[in-house]
Each structure stands twice: as structure tokens, then as C-alpha cells.
């Protein structure tokens, strides 16, 4: 079952904050976040394992609510370089990584 991401697209001004959500109908073991710029390969951002762990580096962080099977990616004080499509990928146990449909983030000056 493909995870559902929201919003599908968002436009922000440089310096604004954004939250991208990822929901699944299955009990998740892990959530992975990737960013893909147009014409490029997805780049790994972070992974969260079940347990409600929160991770982050610099101004990008994420949380994982195991009970709700949801993860959120937080982008603080967005920069132009944050533009791209963000994908969450989820695993159930040791099963394959299943990606969501993506959230297109556009940062304008």
C-alpha cells in the first residue's frame, strides 16, 4: 500500500517554514525521506525507525508517530536549495521500500 503524502505541492517564500506529511494504512517499521531535484536522482535525507524517534540536521527534521503511522518532515527557514520533490518511503518489517507520490516544494526569493 502506497503511503499518502500531503500536501501535493507547496510554494513558499525563502525563510518560511514547511511541513510535509506522510501517512500509511499499515503498521510501519521505518520511514525514509528523500529529496529529488528535477532531472536528478533522489538524495537520502534521513530515516526514522518505529519508536516515535525524531531526527534532524541543520534546519530539516522529521518525526515518526508510530501509533498513527504518520511521519512529518519539517523544513525551517527554507532556502532556495530546498526546492524539489520530497518523497517519503516506508517499510513494513523487512519488506521493500514503498515510496509515496511526492510533494513538490517550490521556494521563491
Amino acid at each position, binding site marked *: 500500500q*502506497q503511503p499518502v503524502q500531503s500536501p501535493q505541492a507547496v510554494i513558499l517564500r525563502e525563510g518560511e517554514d514547511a511541513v510535509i506529511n506522510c501517512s500509511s494504512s499499515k503498521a510501519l517499521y*521505518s520511514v*525514509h525521506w*528523500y529529496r529529488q531535484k528535477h532531472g*536528478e*536522482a*533522489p*538524495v*537520502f535525507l534521513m*530515516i526514522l*525507525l518505529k519508536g516515535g524517534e525524531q531526527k534532524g540536521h541543520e534546519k530539516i527534521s522529521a518525526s515518526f508517530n508510530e501509533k498513527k503511522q504518520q511521519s512529518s518532515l519539517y523544513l525551517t527557514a527554507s532556502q532556495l536549495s530546498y526546492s524539489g520533490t520530497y*518523497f517519503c*518511503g516506508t*517499510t513494513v518489517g523487512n*519488506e*521493500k*521500500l*514503498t*515510496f*509515496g*507520490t*511526492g510533494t513538490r516544494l517550490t521556494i521563491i526569493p
Partner: protein
Amino acid sequence: DAGVTQSPTHLIKTRGQQVTLRCSPKSGHDTVSWYQQALGQGPQFIFQYYEEEERQRGNFPDRFSGHQFPNYSSELNVNALLLGDSALYLCASSLDGSYEQYFGPGTRLTVT
């Protein structure tokens, strides 16, 4: 340290033909996964190779097959190409037991 490399970059084939895509994993990685990414969609898992064996497989027909070599590089073969096979094919490598996958730049396949 070389990252994941894929070849060719672009490929144009005709319906019914066969194609082989190649992937070299990041140095030190032993596991290779292949994904198909249609325009505007997230990557879809095709299969994963570890120790030269297919370890996991997604919902793709048998026309999609693969191979992993002793040096951990991998090939993706697609037979009897259909128009719907047109997509970006991504290879991702990882170290067995690690959850981090590193993607290559992809091969853009166009079937006419």
C-alpha cells in the same frame, strides 16, 4: 569515493525489443535495488539483489529480470518492451543491514 553509477544515461528502444541497463554500486556497498520511476510519480521497487541472488521482488512481471555480479555490480533486463515501460530506471545501493540507500542518476528509457 565514487557514488552509484548507471549506464547508459538515455536509451530509445522500439516496442518488442529487449534492453539491458547497468549499475555499479557505491564503493563498499553489497546490495543493489532497482526502481522504476514514471513521470510525476515516486520510484517503484522492482527487485533487490544481494550475494548475486534476487532477495526481494516488487509487483513487476517476469519480463523484468536482473543479475548481480561478484563485484556487486548489477544489470536490469527488460524483455518484450511495452510503451508503458518508458520511465526513469534508478539503481540504489546499500550495505546489507543498513537502511540508507544511495541512488544513481538513472537511465531514461523511452519506448516508441
